[in-house]
């Protein structure tokens, strides 16, 4: 009798153990499943779009080339005697982007590189409401010029979830969107 009860209890224990295992595995895969897709992340609110300002541009050289005097040349090693000294440093890039007259993005960027002589890469994203807007961009890429060297103005219509790219190419005349 006692033996029978013990065997039943053992079997019950086994059933209980398997039950607990199933519960734990279910809980585990439940956590795996849930956090693999939920909660959803709202990158944009309803009726929002994105304006991305993105371009690479080499700004103007800061100073003019200068002819070296004979005396200055003689001080240099023979293999270093270039008659013209051109500074490598490029100008700071200054940019402002306005949407409907309000400042959306402002950038003041030094050219990268040890001698500040490399192209500037600009990448900035701004969330804006969808719909019709007045876009205006101005940029100065030459320290020797006061005020903007490039300007752009356009009416844009943004759909929700649309990404408007504001690009720049000096050889094509300046800013353009797509």
């Amino acid at each position: 009798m006692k033996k029978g009860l013990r065997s039943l209890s053992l079997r019950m224990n086994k059933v209980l153990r398997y039950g607990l295992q199933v519960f734990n595995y279910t809980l585990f895969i439940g956590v795996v499943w849930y956090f693999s897709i939920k909660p959803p992340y709202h990158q944009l609110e309803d009726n929002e779009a994105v304006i991305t300002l993105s371009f690479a541009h080499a700004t103007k050289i800061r100073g003019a080339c200068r002819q070296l005097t004979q005396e200055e040349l003689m001080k240099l090693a023979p293999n270093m005697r270039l008659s013209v000294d051109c500074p490598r440093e490029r100008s700071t890039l200054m940019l402002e982007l306005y949407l409907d007259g309000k400042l959306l993005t402002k950038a003041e960027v030094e050219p990268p590189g040890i001698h500040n002589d490399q192209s500037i890469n600009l990448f900035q994203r701004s969330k804006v409401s969808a719909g019709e807007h007045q876009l205006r961009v101005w940029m100065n890429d030459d320290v020797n010029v006061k005020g903007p060297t490039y300007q752009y103005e356009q009416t844009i219509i943004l759909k929700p979830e649309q990404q408007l790219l504001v690009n720049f190419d000096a050889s094509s005349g300046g800013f353009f969107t797509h």
Partner: protein
Amino acid sequence: MRYINPIKRAYLGIEAWFNIAFGSECNPLYNLGRLAFFFFWIVFISGLYLFIFFDTSISGAYASVEYMTHEQWYIGGVMRSLHRYASDAAVIVILLHMLREFALGRYKGFRWFSWVTGVPTLWFVITLGITGYWLVWDELGLYVAMLSSQLIDVLPFIPGSMARNFVGEQLSDRFFTLMAFLHFLGQPLLLIFALWIHVKRLSLVKISAPKGLAIGSFIALLALSLVAPAVSHKPAEMGQVTAVLNLDWFYLNVYPLIDNITAGWTWVLTLSITLFLMLLPWLPPKKTGPAAEVHLDHCNGCEQCAEDCPYDAISVQARTDGAKFENEVKVNTHLCAACGICVGSCPSSNPFRQKNELLVTGIDMPQMPINEVRDRVNEAIAKIKGDSKIIVLGCENALDFSRIEAPDLQVVSLFCIGMMPATLVEYALANGVDGVFITGCRTGDCYYRYGNVWMDQRFDGSRQPILRQRADRARIKVFRAAATDSKSLYQELTEFQNHIKKLNNEEGAAQPESAHE
């Protein structure tokens, strides 16, 4: 009574719950590292299958994944789901592994190396997952690509802008193939290397999950793959920003930060957390006792201690003292955890040796030499009074014995139960003790990895030096418990006391009869 911090208390409670469900051998919390390896195997094998059908071009990637998910759902879709869910499961067990080591204080002292190398390993796993999401080239893939690029662009030594590739039409197959190469080969190799470093200071490393646990986990993941198969978002469109994304929070949790606090601050935050975690072993540091010392006069170079050391701190070299033996052992003090397991392994630790002299063994702990252990046992035996004289030999990292106070009970604590020479039990029984009660960490969870395993094997005769058959097993009780199991300790002790009293009475009754015969 010893203070147990609430995290440790909670963790030990959960472990006890899992012991009921899975048993100690298959307790997932005792096998978190091994489970992570098992999930990596699922990821690897399912990944191999996906690689066969995956098109590594920017235009074909999405279509090939969709083909596997929908047209070939019965195998390709299942493989994709297993690939994703096993990757997620790996992150969970790695995080639990870290939390466990932290909760149980197993990240300080000699364990610093495993902890410090483990923290960046988690990042290698995360970045591997990130490139995986990138390759699907759906809306989520584009989001991952765009924000990863912003993270990279902010680094001062990166020329140009990577993010610009994902706003126009410029993205080339070559770039995409590079990402595929990273995901298929570069990052997995880096991860394998990191894992190898992570376990470098351990010996007898087990990387395969217990069979029962592996089968159970696989069935669970397979069921999830069939019930809720992994699916893609819509295909990536460069001019589009998807408003709502179903992020995989195990891998992509950093990305919303980039949106909200900029890429630069995301770097600062994640690097600060990583650095803080890596510095934890020294905040405040835990002092490890002096390393084991070899006494060549008593070492015959049997190599048992080198075989038993869980931290690979003992090496074997040619004899240097001119003794007739071929080898000797040498302790690497930087690796030694001062657990004393080597003392229990040494045949010269037999307390019956040099009975009335100083007991010196082949390898010993300077802070508690084997002679002192024997002295403590002798003192305990001398103090025990009553009908059931019981000595408790316990691991100081398992239970708190401070409240054990009874005239017929005396306690001798050791660094690890593996430090106890099996013959010490026999010695105690031969010198007037009626019962030996041994306490060590829970089965499958030794504080020093293998102490309780080696003790069991010494007792059952499968590991040298063994507990001889003449030691009466009926008078030996092994009780495995964690720091939070004090209540059970007193219950078990009372039961053992009653058992010993009964044995004493039975033997007392039998002796006059035999004398009469």
